[in-house]
């Protein structure tokens, strides 16, 4: 039930009005002067106050002002004398919600009360709405703050260096990993430096171009590059970036830097280990080769000594031959080692590959004949003068053909008619395929596996174990490939593919 405080110095009016208001369902309290009214107001906290304006002592305006001071939302309706417009205006200025003229008529009173009540209801609603709104804003703010906090933690804890800028490339985000990579402190960078101040020139240019380029988001794909840190270190990083845009308008950039120092260090270590292992293998193989040669030299010296002591010319000569043979083996080993250890760029020259193939066959003709091996040449006549490294080709073919003849020599099946074939074929626009095929001893899987590794020789005393290593190295330096097919007892085929260029002069 709505409480009303009724204030009037005339008890008759108070009585009549309060009867009428009570009949309308209000809970009415009355006061005969302003002072009493304020005491009652404090005690009862009515939502509506109806006060006469002209009262002895504290008048209605003063009551109004006091009440508004206590609670601005209390609706105060002023009762004025007939025609007292001035007072009514003053009352409205002080926040009265309405005024009614004396003599108070029921309809006027009920309209004023109804309006006051509506106002109170609206105020109440407004208050609720405001409260609700504030609650919602607070919730949303909390949520946004939590998300922002989460994202900033995410950025902070990322292992990748993250650098984000505004549309002018001013750095706005710069996480600890970025600090670690670039070496600049966060406080010196954020809002103080441009991305182009810390990025390598190439990336700085890239971002500047993208920022000035056509609108729209843009991804800059992952690539490896190097950062120069604050203290001048060159740091390998993986980099990816994006131009950020909102509604088609560029708003900034973000770049991710993955520190590759550790990975590079491990790669280096691995490479070093592999190289060390290769050196170990090489030294072990080399020691074996040298031991064999030393053995030959010692044996030779023994025979020479024996020959001299016993005046036996035959022993002397055989011993001397042995020494000479082992000296030439030494030089072969040294030459192989030299050509293996030397880095060499292929020297392209105009040449006729088919002629080189023929030269190699001619060189080996005698050795083949001694070993009962027939050499077959099948060259592709469409191969004319091209530009490639003739020395590489010569050495590769000589080595493979020599091996092929040896493979026949080592073959135990003496019923075979041994053949070694050298075939050339133009394969693609710029590749010649060379095939060296023998029907000799062939290789088992184990030997095939070890084929290109150092010092693995199946030839016993005849091989240094370096030939195929050198061959492969030469082919790789020439950007070519070498493949092998072999079956034990059936023979072996080496396929070499070497790229060539068009001959230089027409």
């Amino acid at each position: 039930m709505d409480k009303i405080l009724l204030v009037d110095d005339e008890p008759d009016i108070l009585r009549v009005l309060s009867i009428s208001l009570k009949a309308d369902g209000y809970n009415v309290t009355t006061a005969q002067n302003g002072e009493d009214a304020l005491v009652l107001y404090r005690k009862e906290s009515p939502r509506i106050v109806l006060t006469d304006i002209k009262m002895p002592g504290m008048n209605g305006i003063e009551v109004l002002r006091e009440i508004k001071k206590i609670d601005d939302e209390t609706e105060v309706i002023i009762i004025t004398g007939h025609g007292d417009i001035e007072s009514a205006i003053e009352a409205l200025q002080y926040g009265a919600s309405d005024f009614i003229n004396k003599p108070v008529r029921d309809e006027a009173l009920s309209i004023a009360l109804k309006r006051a009540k509506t106002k109170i209801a609206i105020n109440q609603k407004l208050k609720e709405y405001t409260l609700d709104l504030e609650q919602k804003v607070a919730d949303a703010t909390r949520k946004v703050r939590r998300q922002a906090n989460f994202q900033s933690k995410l950025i902070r804890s990322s292992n990748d260096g993250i650098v984000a800028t505004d549309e002018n490339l001013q750095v706005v985000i710069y996480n600890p990993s970025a600090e670690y990579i670039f070496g600049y402190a966060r406080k010196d960078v954020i809002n103080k430096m441009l991305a182009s101040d810390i990025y390598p020139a190439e990336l700085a240019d890239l971002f500047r171009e993208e920022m000035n380029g056509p609108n729209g988001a843009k991804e800059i794909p992952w690539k490896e590059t190097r950062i120069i840190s604050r203290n001048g270190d060159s740091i390998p990083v993986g980099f990816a970036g994006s131009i950020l845009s909102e509604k088609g308008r560029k708003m900034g950039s973000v770049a991710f830097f993955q520190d590759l120092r550790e990975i590079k260090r491990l790669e280096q270590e691995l490479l070093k280990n592999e190289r060390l292992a290769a050196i170990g293998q090489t030294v072990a193989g080399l020691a074996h080769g040298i031991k064999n040669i030393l053995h030959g030299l010692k044996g030779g010296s023994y025979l020479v000594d024996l020959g001299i002591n016993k005046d036996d010319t035959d022993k002397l000569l055989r011993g001397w031959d042995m020494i000479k043979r082992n000296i030439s083996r030494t030089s072969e080993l040294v030459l192989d080692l030299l050509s293996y250890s030397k880095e060499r760029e292929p020297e392209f020259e105009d040449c006729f590959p088919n002629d080189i193939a023929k030269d190699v066959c001619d060189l080996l003709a005698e050795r083949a004949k001694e070993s009962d091996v027939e050499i077959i040449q099948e060259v592709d006549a469409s191969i004319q003068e091209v530009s490639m490294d003739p020395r590489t080709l010569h050495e590769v073919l000589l080595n493979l053909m020599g091996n092929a003849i040896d493979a026949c020599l080592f073959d135990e099946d003496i019923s075979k008619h041994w053949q070694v074939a050298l075939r050339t074929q133009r394969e693609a626009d710029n590749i010649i395929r060379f095939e060296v095929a023998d029907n000799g001893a062939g290789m088992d899987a184990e030997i095939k596996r070890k084929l290109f590794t150092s010092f693995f020789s199946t030839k016993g005393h005849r091989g240094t174990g370096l030939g195929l290593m050198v061959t492969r190295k030469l082919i790789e330096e020439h950007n070519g490939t070498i493949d092998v097919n072999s079956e034990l007892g059936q023979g072996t085929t080496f396929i070499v593919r070497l790229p060539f260029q068009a001959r230089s002069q027409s």
Partner: protein
Amino acid sequence: MGKTVLTVDDDPDVRLFNVTVIEEHGYTPLEATNGEEGLSLIKQEKPDLVILDVLMPRESGIRLYRNLKTDKKLKDIPVILLSGIAQKSFLRSQKALTQFGGAAVPEPEVYLEKPVEAEELAAAIKKMIG
């Protein structure tokens, strides 16, 4: 008649050296250039001693040694292994082969690493067969 010593080596220099040492010390030399030839000569001639290079083409030296030492009739013929590889590596490789299901073979009576002095070889021969 002197005792016979067979030298099996693919390297003609080594054979010549070995044969000379064998002759110089009063034994009768026999030679073979690979494992297969060596095995048939051993069966045929029953030499008193074999000097064998383990590292020959197609691993025929190692095969010969394993065949010899797993053959009831031939396993008592003493063997001097003469090789460019260290004894340790050879023994390790034999152990590995045994583990892969091959028969266990005894260690050679004498293992000499190349290069070997004539006196050293002669002393080893003498120690084996007198």
